[in-house]
């Protein structure tokens, strides 16, 4: 089946108020071309679920977000995501801050169609204090131990970015870490994967070993070819993080004028192609 589509077609399917999971980790292999398409849309009141990076910062700064579910939000080389900090410090979003492992367990529970999974992570910490919706569960066996019953993080939509994919939705990561992108797809009703390059299925194994083929086509509804689609986050081995651009982005959190300028120059554009052109023209 040919599942090729475009950022615009994907985002036209989304609705305000949806819960959207975004793959990658921090400022690493984020599906940024899809994030940029959301920035160009009328969508609002989104709930975002992410090992957060500039995906969260940008969408918060653009006023698209009602709630963020996260373990951290970081730009890696810049440890604190400045736009996200503004959103938190002005209480413009609802925050559900979890332990990183609890977060994985929530995705895994949703992926397995379970209401929750038990974990020790969170016990004794203020994660439970500030998230009263989280409940404990007692082991039914002799030990009788109590655990956090991490509820399933069910997603309306998952967005991920891979290095390679085929037209049918088989995805391939070629960098050092796959992160949790499979769980985002398995936890979601609709799943969209951008990639650096679409290749014929028979060429996938010439790109990387069998073990790099971690996304199969049952996990994906649409494939978008988006060269540079993870910019300015890193997407090794295709490219590293654009640190200069990231610094420029981060600096705009301190200055509304600079943000306005950044937005006009890079975000209020007609398409991803225009964005890539603006980046190259720097």
């Amino acid at each position, binding site marked *: 089946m040919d599942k090729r589509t475009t950022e615009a077609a994907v985002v036209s399917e989304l609705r305000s108020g949806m819960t959207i999971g975004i793959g990658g*980790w921090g400022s690493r292999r984020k599906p940024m071309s899809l994030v940029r398409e959301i920035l160009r849309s009328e969508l609002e009141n989104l709930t975002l679920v992410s090992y957060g990076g500039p995906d969260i910062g940008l969408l918060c700064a653009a006023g698209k977000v009602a709630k963020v579910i*996260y*373990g*951290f*939000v*970081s730009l890696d080389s810049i*440890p*604190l995501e400045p736009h*996200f*900090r503004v959103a*938190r*410090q*002005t*209480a413009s979003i609802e*925050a559900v*801050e*979890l*332990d*990183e*492992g*609890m977060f*994985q367990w929530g995705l895994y529970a949703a992926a397995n169609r379970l209401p929750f999974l038990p*974990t*020790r*992570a*969170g*016990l*004794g*910490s*203020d*994660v439970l*204090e*500030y998230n009263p919706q989280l409940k404990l569960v007692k082991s039914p066996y002799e*030990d*009788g*131990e*109590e655990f956090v019953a991490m509820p399933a993080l069910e997603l309306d939509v998952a967005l991920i970015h891979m290095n390679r994919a085929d037209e049918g939705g088989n995805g391939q990561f070629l960098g*050092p*870490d*796959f*992160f*949790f992108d499979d769980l985002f797809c398995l936890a979601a009703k609709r799943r969209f994967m951008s990639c650096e390059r679409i290749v014929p299925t028979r060429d996938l194994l010439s790109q990387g070993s069998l073990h790099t083929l971690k996304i199969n086509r049952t996990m994906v509804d649409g494939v978008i070819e988006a060269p540079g689609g993870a910019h300015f986050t890193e997407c090794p081995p295709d490219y590293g993080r654009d640190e200069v651009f990231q610094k420029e982005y981060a600096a705009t959190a301190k200055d509304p004028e600079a943000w306005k300028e950044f937005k006009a120059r890079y975000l209020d554009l007609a398409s991803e192609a225009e964005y890539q052109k603006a980046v190259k023209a720097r």
Partner: protein
Amino acid sequence: MKRFTRAEACAIAIAETFRGDGEILVSPIGNLPAIGARLAKLTFEPDLLLTDGVASIVATVQPVGGAEGPEPVVESYLPYRSVFDCLWSGRRHVMMGATQIDRFGNQNIACIGDYRKPKAQLLGMRGAPGNTINHPTSYWVPNHGTKVFVEKVDVVSGVGYDRAAALGERASRFHEIRRVVSNLGVFDFDSPDHRMRLASVHAGVTVDEVVENTGFELVIDGDVPETRAPTDEELTILREVLDPNGFGAREVKD
């Protein structure tokens, strides 16, 4: 001239927190923690597992800050998912930072002020809740002061001994805050109710100086010893092998 710097004293104190750990994954967060953990591996704890900070476990011990070292030998693969598996299995000792820490070792890296509208959003919970309830945790504080060592932390990210005790013996059986190392001294929780105890002061630091810079009452029993001084061999390793560009001294000044 002094034989060793404060940063070097800290590196020794950090290395000592990993003594006896054997064949487990060590995750030191920060420059001096990385230096200390690598020093431990090169001297008295050769079986420790250390990563390259990305997804490889590296058998060789590399210098910090990209200085020239041996050709790295990768011994295994450890993406984030495997880090979680490892930490849930308990075969790990992490050394994290702490924006705030209290007398029972409760640590805050999440935010300052009210969680619902913080004065300053920090890193977030990250892995602190899961780390502290699953395996040994130590803390590194390069800027010992009353803003860090506080009566009460604003948010509990890493679980301290009073919170662990409240969970009961079974739920807290994997909880251990091994030590806190700061630029002034070394602290443990070897007191009857696991309150923070001043275990040693670094060379050139007085007990009064530590007390003045701590926002709660420390347990101090008897004469407080000085942190173990580095041996000549350790100083050579620190200066010539692990940190030739002096990253440690940038984190802690004399």
